[in-house]
């Protein structure tokens, strides 16, 4: 990774400082996840010990066994993944097209279009629950992935479009023009030149869309009531009772939910970073 942007390289230097900074970053980001991991290895009794314990006294995997046997956890994961991935793909596709139109083409009222797209995202989803339910029922989409994919796409569309607009505007027009001289259509140039060059932006937009879809609870609860279509956030609530909140088992389920996403992020970010550098060299 020699291609680091020098934006901060010049401000901080020195290996020990770097390690310290890395440590701070990891603690800030990972602490709650680690805490959940520790909790998932504790017994419920250990949680009411005073003063509290950090590392589990007698680690147990019983909570993981319960997490998998009490509820179809893998099914929840599968549903969440499919919904999140499909809606991310749809979001990216639609917002790339829209962002290109806004960033590059001469449209009258460009600001108006942009404002309109942002404006619609300023409505809290909670308040749209009932009309949305009616729409999904009218379209016969209740209890399907599509019932979630469509609203999740809309949920992320504005932010992704705006991110991509700001990235597309930073790509020199010359690159695109030369590609078009080489015989590319405008759309071809968009997908062969503009999108690869905006890889960090596309990646960021994709991650945001994925996580937005991955996190959502209220619509998933309301539109997909069938047990075979539950997503992870809805599924995890099934471990709790009316009053009981068994943190160790819920923690185990959360860990199982976080690990695949973490792996995905690690793989995905490496690819994007390397894709970026090779694309940059070509350009």
């Amino acid at each position: 990774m020699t291609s680091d942007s020098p934006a901060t390289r010049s401000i901080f230097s020195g290996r020990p400082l770097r390690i310290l900074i890395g440590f701070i970053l990891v603690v800030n980001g990972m602490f709650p996840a680690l805490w959940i991991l520790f909790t998932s290895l504790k017994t419920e009794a250990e949680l009411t010990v005073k003063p509290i314990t950090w590392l589990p006294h007698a680690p147990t995997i019983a909570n993981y066994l319960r997490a998998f046997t009490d509820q179809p956890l893998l099914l929840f994961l599968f549903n969440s993944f499919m919904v999140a991935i499909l809606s991310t793909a749809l979001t990216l596709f639609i917002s790339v097209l829209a962002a290109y139109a806004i960033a590059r083409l001469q449209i009258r009222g460009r600001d108006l279009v942009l404002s309109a797209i942002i404006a619609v995202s300023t409505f809290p989803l909670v308040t749209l629950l009932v009309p949305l339910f009616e729409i999904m029922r009218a379209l016969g989409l209740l209890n399907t992935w599509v019932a979630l994919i469509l609203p999740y796409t809309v949920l992320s569309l504005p932010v992704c479009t705006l991110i991509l607009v700001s990235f597309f505007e930073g790509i020199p027009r010359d690159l695109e023009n030369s590609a078009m001289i080489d015989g590319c259509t405008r759309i071809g140039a968009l997908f062969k030149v503009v999108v690869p060059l905006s890889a960090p932006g596309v990646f960021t937009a994709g991650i945001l869309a994925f996580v937005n879809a991955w996190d959502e609870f209220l619509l998933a609860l309301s539109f997909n009531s069938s047990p075979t279509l539950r997503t992870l956030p809805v599924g995890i609530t099934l471990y709790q009772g009316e009053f009981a909140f068994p943190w160790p088992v819920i923690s185990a389920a959360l860990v199982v939910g976080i690990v695949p996403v973490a792996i995905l992020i690690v793989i995905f970010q490496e690819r994007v970073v390397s894709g970026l550098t090779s694309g940059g060299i070509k350009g």
Partner: protein
Amino acid sequence: MATASETTLVSAPAEGATKWWTRFLDPSERTLAVLLLLPAAFLLALIIVYPVGRLVWTSFQNLSLTSGLPATFAGLENYALMLDDPVFWETTWNTILITLITVPGALVVGMILALMANLPFETKWPTRLSLLIPWALPLSFAGLIFAWFFHSEYGVVNDVLRRLGFEGVIWFNSANWAFAAICLTIVWKTSSFMALIILAGLQTIPRSLYEAAEVDGAGRIRQFFEITLPLLKPAIVVALIFRTITALQTFDIPYTMTRGGPGTSTATLAMYIHQNTVDFLDLGYGSALAVVMFLLSMGVTVVYLRMIRAKG
């Protein structure tokens, strides 16, 4: 439908479709623009515009399901009701306060995180992962986890305070401490969003600019303020717009952490809307509140867009 037509647009083989293409492409950019915006417009119309239209219409009606009465036209009655509803004013003020605290808070923390994560680490994934994990933790559980962290007896925050020799704080027993706990949690959860967008921006800044600046003898601090910050502006504005809008919609974290307590001192407008619509089933009043919130976020968006246009 929209998707299908778009797929053909993209995958259309170059030779056969050239004529078809050129008719749409080169002569008129506007036609292409419309085509490209069509799928977005279609989805937004279906999922947002139609429901919002119904919402606005409902806001002018007397429609409380628990009254057992049919809906009647109410004009601006629901809006007038807000004026002397103390809970409306309190929750609105709380929402504005949360926005004013957490948006700059997340921006500063996110900027620091992004600059830190952009250092040339030998292995990158631990830091990248650390930026993204706060996002991957479902929001509905992040609030619960942090409520537990701030628990006066079993919480890790007080445990650390006690180990450092301080007295533990009963966070949720006081409006101010509860508010602080909520704001800290929101900043933690959202600063990674800021950092992510800023980091993506940082990576597109060409190295040559810094080299040139170094030749000119600019110091590191000056480089930051004269190169990094101005070039990051578009990314920062994007992040700010959406952070502000989501801050105005703050719901999950106070809902799971305090339920708006003690009393209603940490309740937000979105919580109040949710309560009126879903719990109280007063659809008319709830819709009117939502419209007010919409106007509030629209106002903010317009200000931001002006900012982009003025300086960009």
